[in-house]
């Protein structure tokens, strides 16, 4: 009886470890998947912003909200939050609002410091020159983000699968060692 109960507990523990290991692996993998997905969405949003500024001549607060449509959280939040900050009574400049939005949203995203730099640089000129110049800056940011995205996709292929199997395998290893 007691032996059987002990076996049950051991089995339960092993299953738990297996679960935990797999979960850790998946979380690590999802970081790579999310990063490339979010970069892609960011590029889409900037393309949309480009169209709004160039053909639409839409004013920036509206243009930002329109660019956020059709992409997912948390990237879309970056744009809607900036627009909200601009229309709020705080009297932030465009650059300040953009910086604040980035700082608030960044931790929830899977994006890295390099993208942050690109976006901050872009934010410092956003809105404050003619359409031609705006397009140049937006396109430059897109090119930089695209190269990041290519890297991210490569990493995703290499590491996402690795982490998924590593998690499970690691857990199995621990179980075997413990048994």
């Amino acid at each position, binding site marked *: 009886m007691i032996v059987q109960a002990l076996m049950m507990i051991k089995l339960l523990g092993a299953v738990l470890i297996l679960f935990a290991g797999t979960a850790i692996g998946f979380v690590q993998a999802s970081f790579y998947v999310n990063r490339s997905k979010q970069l892609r969405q960011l590029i889409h949003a900037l393309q949309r912003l480009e169209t709004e500024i160039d053909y639409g*001549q839409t004013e*920036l607060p509206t243009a930002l909200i329109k660019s956020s449509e059709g992409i997912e959280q948390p990237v879309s939040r970056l744009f809607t939050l900036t627009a909200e900050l601009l229309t709020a009574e705080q*009297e932030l*400049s465009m650059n300040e609002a953009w910086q604040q939005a980035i700082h608030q949203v960044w931790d929830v995203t899977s994006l890295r410091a390099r993208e942050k730099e690109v976006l901050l640089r872009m934010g410092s000129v956003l*809105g404050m020159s*003619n359409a031609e110049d705006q397009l140049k800056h937006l396109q430059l940011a897109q090119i930089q983000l695209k190269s990041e995205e290519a890297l991210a996709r490569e990493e995703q292929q290499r590491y996402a699968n690795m982490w998924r199997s590593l998690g499970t395998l690691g857990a199995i290893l621990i179980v075997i060692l413990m048994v």
Partner: protein
Amino acid sequence: MLEDIVHILPQELKAIIYHLPMEVKHSLEEIRIRENRPLEISHRGSFHYATEQGKLVLDPRQAYQPSHEQCRKLLERITNYSLYAMEEELRRGYITIAGGHRIGIAGRTILDGGSVRGIRDIGGFNIRIAREVVGAAKQLLPKLFAGPGGSLQSTLMISPPQQGKTTMLRDVARSLSYGSHGKQLPMKVAIVDERSEIAASVRGIPSFDVGPRTDVMDACPKAEGMMMLLRSMSPDVIIVDEIGRVEDALAIREAAHCGVKVIATAHAYDVQEVLGRSEIRGLIQEKAFGSIVELKRSQHGFMHRIIAVDRLLEHSRQNSGFFSLSRKAGS
């Protein structure tokens, strides 16, 4: 009224305007903001510099000096963070904001093949406060209905600058559109607002009350605008500011052919001077206008003198004719 202006100002400037003496606030005409130079306030024809505490002084050294950062913020707020959407306005040199106030801007121009394409490095703003005078044309209006059977006549209003031509024209448009003059039913009014002064439209919507039956063609060249409105909006009367070019005259003739009345203004000190301008003289000789109104602004309000074109033509025929009149104006 000041709310629209205060709303766009950066915090420090907002506080200064807020602390100005009450009577100055009520008679404010211009706020002149120049980067790193004294803040200037002009009110009821005189000017002062403003200190950080909102006191008015005449010594520029005591005055508050707006910083680069503040000017940049002001520009962002005027343009709603979208300089790129204001290229046309920048070429014209001013931006109209909600409430009909106009903000003139000065800075370094960008040239394209010798003509100005825009302004960058903007370092000077002139915020001109617009005031709507409802009822300005009350005295004048009944006299515009001097046509056959008391119908509205095409009218040319003339006055020197800053004498209230535009204010008057706006009130005429509004009254005709409301029918508030009691002479006739409300009319379909069309305004060609080349310089966004009459209706002060922001994104196509008039800031001033120009009446319920009024259509506005904003920022549109006068002659082209008149033709477009004739075709598209079937107006009873067209309102247009500052005529004088050949195309304007053609469009006014076209309107006359369609039976549409035109109420226009022109820069001139008196009838003699306006007759010296050949395009306008031609229109008057053809009786495209039924009467001419001379406007002046005095301390008691708007003054006007009406000259019937029939009478004028008769008079000049009896004397040595139009050409002596025009020569007198030219000399």
